[in-house]
């Protein structure tokens, strides 16, 4: 064994020990094995960037309806244009650019609104209407059957409200509740 081989061997063992130490330290610290990206609905400012900044052709972000906090309003400010001609399902009255919200009569004066997910582009127009003037039951979530879980979420990077974070993958959605915003 010559001198060069000896030095290389020492450096190699040192590097292996270093890598082992690094891994051990990180493993000790790791409480969650996996994380996914998710939108905090309380922080979201419905700017519309979710529809355009995602790396996917059709964003992984979709609007979801939380029936629990929905008011079932006849004049739904998430469904209708600010000053609709008529409270009807006519396309000219709808806020949604793709007609992805289904309005169904239940009983006077209540209507149920459901998102037709394949049509939704995550533009947040309905979220804005519903949150500013209604109960805020419409809000955006990243759907994990669509999200490719990029190491750096490009929507998170562009989000003006810093509302997108990594969360544990065993609880991958952040839902609003009737109790309101947690402190």
């Amino acid at each position, binding site marked *: 064994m010559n001198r060069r081989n000896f030095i290389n061997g020492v450096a190699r063992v040192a590097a292996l020990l270093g890598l082992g130490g690094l*891994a051990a330290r990180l493993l000790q610290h790791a409480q969650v094995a996996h994380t996914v990206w998710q939108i905090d609905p309380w922080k979201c400012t419905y700017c519309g960037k979710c529809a355009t900044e995602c*790396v996917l052709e059709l964003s992984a972000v979709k609007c979801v309806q939380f029936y629990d*906090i929905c008011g079932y309003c006849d004049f739904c400010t998430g469904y209708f244009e600010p000053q609709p001609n008529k409270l009807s399902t006519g396309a000219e009255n709808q806020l949604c650019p793709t007609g992805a919200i289904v309005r169904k009569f239940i009983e006077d004066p209540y209507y149920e609104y459901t998102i037709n997910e394949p049509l939704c582009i995550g533009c947040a127009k309905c979220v804005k209407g519903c949150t500013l003037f209604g109960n805020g039951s419409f809000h955006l979530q990243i759907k994990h059957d669509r999200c490719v879980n990029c190491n750096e979420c490009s929507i998170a990077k562009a989000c003006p409200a810093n509302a997108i974070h990594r969360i544990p993958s065993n609880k991958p959605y952040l839902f609003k509740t009737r109790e309101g915003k947690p402190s």
Partner: protein
Amino acid sequence: MATALAQRFPPPEFTETGHQMPTLTGFPSRALAWDYVDVVVLFVALALAAWLVLRRRSRRGVIALSIFSLLYFGFWRKGCVCSIGSMQNITQALFDSAYAVPLTVLAFGVLPLVFALFFGRVFCAAVCPHGAFQDLMLLRPLHTPTWLEHGLRLLAYVYLGLAAIFAATGGGYIICQYDPFIALFRLSGSLTMILLGVGFLAASLFIGRPYCRFLCPYGVLLGLAAAVARWRPSITPSACTQCSRCEDFCPFNAINISTPKPAPLQPPSPMAQKIRLTVLLLLIPIFVGLGLWLGDAAGAALARKHRVVNLAERVHLETSGTVQGTTEASEAFHAAGTPQEKLFGEAHTLRERYVRAGRLGGIWVGLVVGIKLLTLGFRRKRERYETDAEHCLACARCFEFCPQDQKWKQILAQAPHPVHAADATK
């Protein structure tokens, strides 16, 4: 504690119809099994690459594995998470206690380095989809002048330093943001990134793996590990005839030539050598000092790229009346009702962290430049053409160009028992 009820309108009571509210459905979790499959595939591919390069000495095998890696890690798994990017997760986990690195990401970061410590850069050879993509595009390599090669290689060290600064301070993952191939793997992305990817591929037709050689930050670490590797490919399985074909055909300038005999120049006197060594050693602290000074300034400038620092500056300008109007970010900040002092405090802490990280980064670059000059100033005596362990991407091309290797392979093909070419060298 919860704030007041969020509802403006009370929940309805369906007295007439007794309608039941639908329960929420369609919230699938992420399919995590694939993440573990990826780690297994990575391990098998690394082992296979090591075997193909060091035992089989087979360029064809390397090409086949490259195609598989490109399709699997690139186009099928969409390139995320990759070993190159995983360095940022590991760095962030070291500096930010709130961030815990996922196990699979840690495996992606560490496994190729461990393999490099034993077998050289077999990850680059046929496992990394970025490398495979460029390597398969290589049509007609042009020779890069040595001075340019050494100069451009330094870019990767600077890039690694920058990526570490941003990851450690929570400023984002720049390696991922400016990854030239990811948009092609996903077949979607911004126009700039697609053009960048296509540009890199076009360059790869004539320049051997430009990203790997001159930019890849992970390649720097793999190179350092490979420099002390236990086994490395030997170009010829028998005696080197000094034909220089391997050096002529290596597209990556990764072959060290044997010392010419007789020496074309009078060797410098021992005294002159000592003086040169002293000068080069003295230059290292000068470069480090220069790096420190530049890093200090760079840290403060880089801090402004961080969203919190950026927002704090904007809010400060708005409240002092220097600028009119608001941005989307400052509007969101005002709407959230966070006290300004808290934001300014955070920004101040961040700026200090950036300056500290910038200084460290500057020291790193200074050291690299100094040591590079030192190693360039001295040439080791070599009996034969050898792979430059640090920069050899283990592509197995040189075996094909070595007449001795071809001769051996012919002899072995006629041998009664199947023998590996690598055994012939013993």
